C-alpha cells in the first residue's frame, strides 16, 4: 500500500524525494523517487505518488518529512484494522 500525503501540511521541501531515491537506489536523485512534489501557480502544492510506492517497510520519506504530512500505507492499514 503506498504512502498518503496531506498536501495541506506539505511545505514543498522535497526531502521526501531525496529520501525515497536514496532508500530505493542508494543515490540522491529525485527523478527516481516514487513521490514528487509539484508546485501550482495558485501557490498550493500537489504531490504525485507513483505505482512503484509500496515496498518500504518503514518509509524513509515519512521519517524525513519535517511536518508529518506523510503516512505510510502500513500505518493506515493498522489504523483501519484497529
Amino acid at each position, binding site marked *: 500500500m503506498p504512502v498518503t500525503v496531506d498536501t*495541506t501540511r*506539505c*511545505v*514543498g*521541501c*522535497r*526531502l521526501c524525494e*531525496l*529520501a525515497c*531515491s*536514496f532508500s530505493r*537506489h*542508494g*543515490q*540522491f*536523485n*529525485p*527523478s*527516481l523517487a516514487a513521490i*514528487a512534489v*509539484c*508546485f501550482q*501557480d*495558485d*501557490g*498550493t*502544492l500537489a504531490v504525485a505518488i507513483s505505482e512503484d510506492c509500496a515496498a518500504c517497510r518503514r518509509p524513509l520519506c515519512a*521519517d*524525513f518529512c*519535517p*511536518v508529518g504530512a506523510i503516512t505510510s500505507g502500513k500505518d493506515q492499514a493498522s489504523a483501519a484494522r484497529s
Partner: protein
Amino acid sequence: MPHGHTGKMLWVDLTAGRWRIEAQDPDPNFFGGRGLNQRRLFELQPEGKDGLDPQSPILLSAGPLVGTLVPGACRLAVDFRNLVTGGVGSANLGGHFAAEMKFAGFDQIVIQGRSPRPVYLLVTPETVVLRDAAGLWGVDTWETENRIKRLENDPRIKTLSIGPAGENGVRFACLIGDRGRAAGYGGCGAVFGAKRLKAIAVRGGLPVTAAHPEALLDEVVRFNREVIEKSDFVKVHRGGGTLAAYLLPGENRPHAVGNMSGEFWDNASIGKVDRAVFDRRYLVRRHACFACPVYCSSVYRVGDLVCEGLQANSWRAFASNLGITDPEMVMRLHALANRYGLDGDHASAVMAWAVECFQHGIIDREETGGLELRWNDGPTMLRLLEQIVAGTGLGAVLAKGLDAAAAEVGRGSRRLAVTAHGNALMEAAMRSHKAWALGIVTSSKGGGHLRGAPAVEARRISPELSRACFGIDDIQDPTAYENKGKLVAWYENYKGVVDMMGLCYLPSMWMELGLFTPDQIARFHHLVTGADGDAATLMHAGARLQTLEHLFNILHAGFGRKDARVPEKLARIPVDRGPFAGQRLDAEGWEQMLDDYYIARGYDPASGWPTRERMKALGLEEAGRRLAAAGLPMPSAEAAGMMGDVACP
C-alpha cells in the same frame, strides 16, 4: 563521478552561440559554490572591463552538499564583477535551482560573451541548448518561468530569470528563481540583460552520490533530532521566518526607518504590518527551500498576486524604511520587485532617499515626473518603482544606483544617502550593534549583512561561550567596540565555508551558536565527499576565499581601509528612542575596530591590504603576483609593523 560533485562544468560562449563541457575535479582549496566561482572569476575577469562588458563573465555554482539530505543545502552562488561598486559581485539564492542544476549534471556554469539576440539556456542531462527568447523579452520573471515550463512541456523545470529591470540595465537588477528567491546584490540581473540572456532553465535526472551514504544518513537523522528539532531558532522561524524573528511582539528593537534616518518604529506602526497580520489575511501555506526542514518562508495571496519570500529584509525595505503601514502595499511592492527583477534592498534605499530629498526640497515635482513623494504612500512608491524599471522621470536617475544618483542630483543630497564602497545600504541596528555595523561596511561585496556581520551579537553571548566558540574574550555588549573586529573576521571566514558548501546562512552559527558549527560542517563534508579536511582546514579555506575577494576589490576597484568609512548619517544622527537611544557610530571607536579587524585578518592596518606573508600562508601567491604586475604590490608584514602571519585561523 566524485562524490558530492557532478565532476563537470559548463562553459557557455553567448557571442558564438557555443558551449562546451569540461571535467572538473573537486577543488581542495575552494571546494565549490562561491569559492569555486570566485577563484575562476579572479582568473577570468579582465582589468578595465565593466561588469556589463561581453568579456566579463558571470558564474553559477552549487556546493558539494547541495542535492543531498544535509538540511538546508540548497544555495546557488552567483559571482561576477559588481556593477555598483566595481569590485566583487557575489549573490546567493535558495529555492530549488541549485539542486536541479546538479541533478542536470553540473557543479558550475560559466557564462561569457553577448548573444546577438535574446536567448534562454536550457540544461538537462540530455541536452544543452540556447533557445530563442525574443518572445520572452519584456516579460516579467513569474511569467517567464510559466512560459518556459509550457514551451518545454515540463512543469518541473527550475528557472533563474531576469525581468524588465535586468533587460533595461537597472544597476541593481537581480535574478529571480522560484518566483520569490533573489540573487540580489550587485546588479547580476543587468549582467544577464547585457548578455541578452533572459533565463537559465534546468531539469535534472542524474544522481548526486555520497562517499559514506549510510553514515551520512545516520548523521543527518541525528543532527535533525538533536540539533534542528531542539533549536529555538528553528522553532521561531517555522512560525514565520525572519519576519517572525525580527518582529518579536512588543519589542522595541532597531529597524531601518525613513531612509535609515532613525532606528525606532513605534509598536502601533509595526502592529499594522507585522507577521500576524500577514498570516491572518494572506497566508496560503508555509514554504521551504529544497531539502530544508526549517521551512522559514511563506506563500501569501493578495488579490491577484500569489507571492513568496517576504522576509525581514523585504519588510524593512517596503514597510519601515518607506514608512508604509498598509500590508497590501508592502506585499505589492515586494511582489513587483520580484516580478521586475529588482533588488529590494537597493530599490528601497533609492526610493527612501528620493522621498527624503523631496521632503527637504532638494528635488521637486518637475524632476519626479509629477509625483509628490512622501512617507507612507504605497501607491506612489509603486509608481516610482515602475519609473525605475522603465527609466522614466526620476526613475532614470535612480536606476543608476544610489551613489550615482546622489552624485548626479548633488545639492546636498549626498548627506541623505547611506552607502559603503558606493553600495546602497538598507540596514537596521547599525548605530547600536557595532560588530554588525563593521561587518556590513567591510563586506567584500561592498556592503551588506550577509558576510561578517554577526547576527548573534544581539544575543548577548556570555564570555565563556564566546571564548569557547570564537576564542574571543567578551562580546556581550552590542554597543561596545572592543573585540568586535576579531568577531567580524571570524564570521567572514565562517560565511566563506557556508557559501562554499552550498548551505544556508540562516540556520547556522550566524543566528544560533549550536547550528552548523565548523566541526559539524566538516563532518557532513567528509561523509558526502570522502575528503578529510577538519574544521580548521575549512575555516582556513574561508579565510583564503575572503582574502581573494579583497584582492579582487583592490585590483578592480582600488578598495582599502580608506573606503571602510563610517556612513556619515549613522555618525551624525543618533537613535532617538527605544532601548538604544543615543547610540551612534563614533569615529574613534570605529578606527579601533578597524585596527583590530585588519590585524585579525593578517592585513596591514594602515592600508587594509593583506600582507605578503598572509597571502603566502593562504596559498594566494599567484594572485599576489597578478596584483604586483598591475603595480599593486602588497605590503610586507615588517613594513606593516606586524610580526609574521598573526591572523587566525
